[in-house]
C-alpha cells in the first residue's frame, strides 16, 4: 500500500487535474509501482463539473498519470466521495477482480466565490426540500447542533473545544490548510455562519488531493516491508433529507458502518487506539465519537471538553487537525483520512506521531449522513 497527498489549501494557480496528478504520482512512487502496473483507477470527486466545469474526470486525470486502457471511474457521494471510491476499490481487490489499484480523491473549490461554493455544497442535501427553503450545509449541521444541545445539554464551549483541539493539531501538520492555534475565546467569538455555529465550527473551503495504492495482502511484500492492513471496511446509506430522519442527533449510517467494520476486523470500539473522523463541523466530531462507540450517546460534548480526544489522551481524535484545520477539499477528504491513519501506523507522522498507533480508524460522512464509510486499519 502506498500513500500520497498534496498540501490542502487555497491554490489559485493549481488546476484540479494537476492536484490529482501530484497526489497520484507521489502515491505510486511511495508504493514503488509504475503506471503500467495499475489495473484500475477509482476517483472520488464531489462537484468537479460545478466547481471547474469539467466532466469525465476519472479518465481525464488517469491520462495525465499515464494510466490508459484500464477502467477509470468517478465516485460521487458528497463529502464521502473519497471514502466511497476507496470502499469500491477495496471491494474489487477483495473480490479478486484486480490486484493493484489506484484510488485518488480531489476537489478544487476555491476558484468560486463563497456564496457559489455554499450553493454547490447545498446540492449534497435535498434540493427540492431543505435546499429550496434556504438550507446551507452549515444550516443543516446547525440544526443538528441545536437538537443535540436540547436533548443532551451540549454547550457552545464543548463545540469550541473541538475546534481549539483540531487547530492545535493542525498547526503541527505541514500539509494542513490552516496552521494556526486558536483560543477558546476566539472560537466562541467567531463570525456567525448559521446559529449556533460560528466560522470556527466549520471546516475550510480547500483545494487538494490524496491517493492510495491498494494491493492484496499476499502481494504486499513485493512493494513494502511495512504494509498497512485494511482490517475492516463498510459503506452504508441513509435518507438524504434531514427532516426524513427519526433522530438527527445521531448518524445511523455511521453507527451501522462502524458495527460492520468492527465485525469484519474482529475488534470492538474500545480496541481502536486513534481515529480520523469527519469533523466537517465541530458538532459532527462530537456525534462521530458517540456513533463510533467511543463514548455513550449524548456525552460526546463532555468527552471533547475534558480533553479526552487530545493528541496525548487515551484515544486521540483527528491528530492530523481534522477537516477543521487540515482543510476539506470534499472529494479528497475520505482518501486523505486513509493516508493520515496509514502515516500514523507506519510511525511517520513526525511531530504528530501518537504513542499508540497500531490500530486506527477513518470515518467519512457524506452530506448530513446519507453516506458513511468506516475503515479499520492496522499494522501487520
Amino acid at each position, binding site marked *: 500500500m502506498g500513500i500520497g497527498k498534496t498540501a490542502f489549501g487555497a491554490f489559485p494557480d493549481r488546476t484540479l487535474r494537476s492536484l490529482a496528478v501530484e497526489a497520484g504520482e507521489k502515491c505510486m512512487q511511495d508504493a514503488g509501482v509504475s503506471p503500467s502496473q495499475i489495473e484500475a483507477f477509482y476517483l472520488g470527486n464531489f462537484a468537479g463539473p460545478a466547481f471547474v466545469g469539467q466532466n469525465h474526470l476519472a479518465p481525464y486525470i488517469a491520462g495525465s498519470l499515464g494510466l490508459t486502457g484500464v477502467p477509470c471511474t468517478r465516485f460521487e457521494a458528497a463529502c464521502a466521495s473519497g471514502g466511497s471510491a476507496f470502499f469500491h476499490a477495496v471491494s474489487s481487490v477483495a473480490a479478486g477482480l484486480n490486484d493493484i489499484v489506484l484510488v485518488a480523491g480531489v476537489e478544487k473549490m476555491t476558484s468560486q466565490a463563497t*456564496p457559489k461554493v455554499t450553493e454547490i455544497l447545498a446540492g449534497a442535501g435535498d434540493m427540492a426540500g431543505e435546499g429550496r*427553503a434556504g438550507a446551507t450545509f452549515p444550516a443543516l449541521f446547525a*440544526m443538528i447542533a441545536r437538537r443535540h444541545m436540547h436533548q443532551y445539554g451540549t454547550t457552545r464551549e464543548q463545540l469550541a473545544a473541538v475546534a481549539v483541539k483540531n487547530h492545535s493539531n493542525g498547526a503541527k501538520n505541514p500539509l494542513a490548510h490552516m496552521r494556526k492555534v486558536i483560543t477558546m475565546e476566539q472560537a466562541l467569538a467567531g463570525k456567525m455562519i*448559521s446559529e449556533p*455555529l460560528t466560522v470556527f465550527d466549520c471546516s475550510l473551503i480547500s483545494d487538494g488531493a490524496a491517493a492510495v495504492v491498494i494491493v492484496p495482502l499476499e502481494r504486499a511484500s513485493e512493494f513494502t516491508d511495512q504494509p498497512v492492513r485494511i482490517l475492516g471496511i463498510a459503506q452504508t446509506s441513509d435518507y438524504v433529507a*434531514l427532516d426524513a430522519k427519526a433522530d438527527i442527533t445521531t448518524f445511523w449510517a455511521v453507527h451501522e458502518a462502524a458495527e460492520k467494520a468492527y465485525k469484519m476486523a474482529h475488534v470492538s470500539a474500545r480496541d481502536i487506539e486513534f481515529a480520523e473522523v469527519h469533523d466537517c463541523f465541530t458538532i459532527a466530531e462530537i456525534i462521530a465519537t458517540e456513533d463510533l462507540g467511543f463514548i455513550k450517546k449524548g456525552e460526546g460534548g463532555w468527552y471533547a471538553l475534558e480533553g479526552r480526544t487530545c493528541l496525548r489522551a487515551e484515544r486521540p481524535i483527528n491528530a492530523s487537525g481534522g477537516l477543521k484545520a487540515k482543510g476539506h477539499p470534499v472529494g479528497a477528504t475520505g482518501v486523505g483520512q486513509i493516508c493520515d491513519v496509514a502515516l500514523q501506523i507506519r510511525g511517520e507522522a513526525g511531530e504528530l506521531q501518537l504513542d499508540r498507533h497500531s490500530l486506527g480508524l477513518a470515518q467519512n460522512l457524506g452530506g448530513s449522513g446519507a453516506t458513511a464509510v468506516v475503515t479499520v486499519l492496522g499494522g501487520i
Partner: protein
Amino acid sequence: MNTGVIYTETVVHAAPAEFVADAPYQLAIVSLDSGGRLTARIAGERVKIGDKVALVETRDGVEYFRKQ
C-alpha cells in the same frame, strides 16, 4: 398539515447565492401535528425548540410558519 412544533431551528447568516438578499433568516424543521416533519422558513418572531407554529403562507414553493 398547517400546525406543528419546532423540532430544531437555526438562523442562517451565510446564505447560498440565491438567498443572499434574505439573510439573516430563520430556518426550522417542524414536527407537523398531522405527522412527519418539514423543513420550512419562519416568518416574524424568532422561534425555539418546542414552540408551537402555524403555516402562514407558501411562497415560491417554500412554507412559512409563524409562532402561535
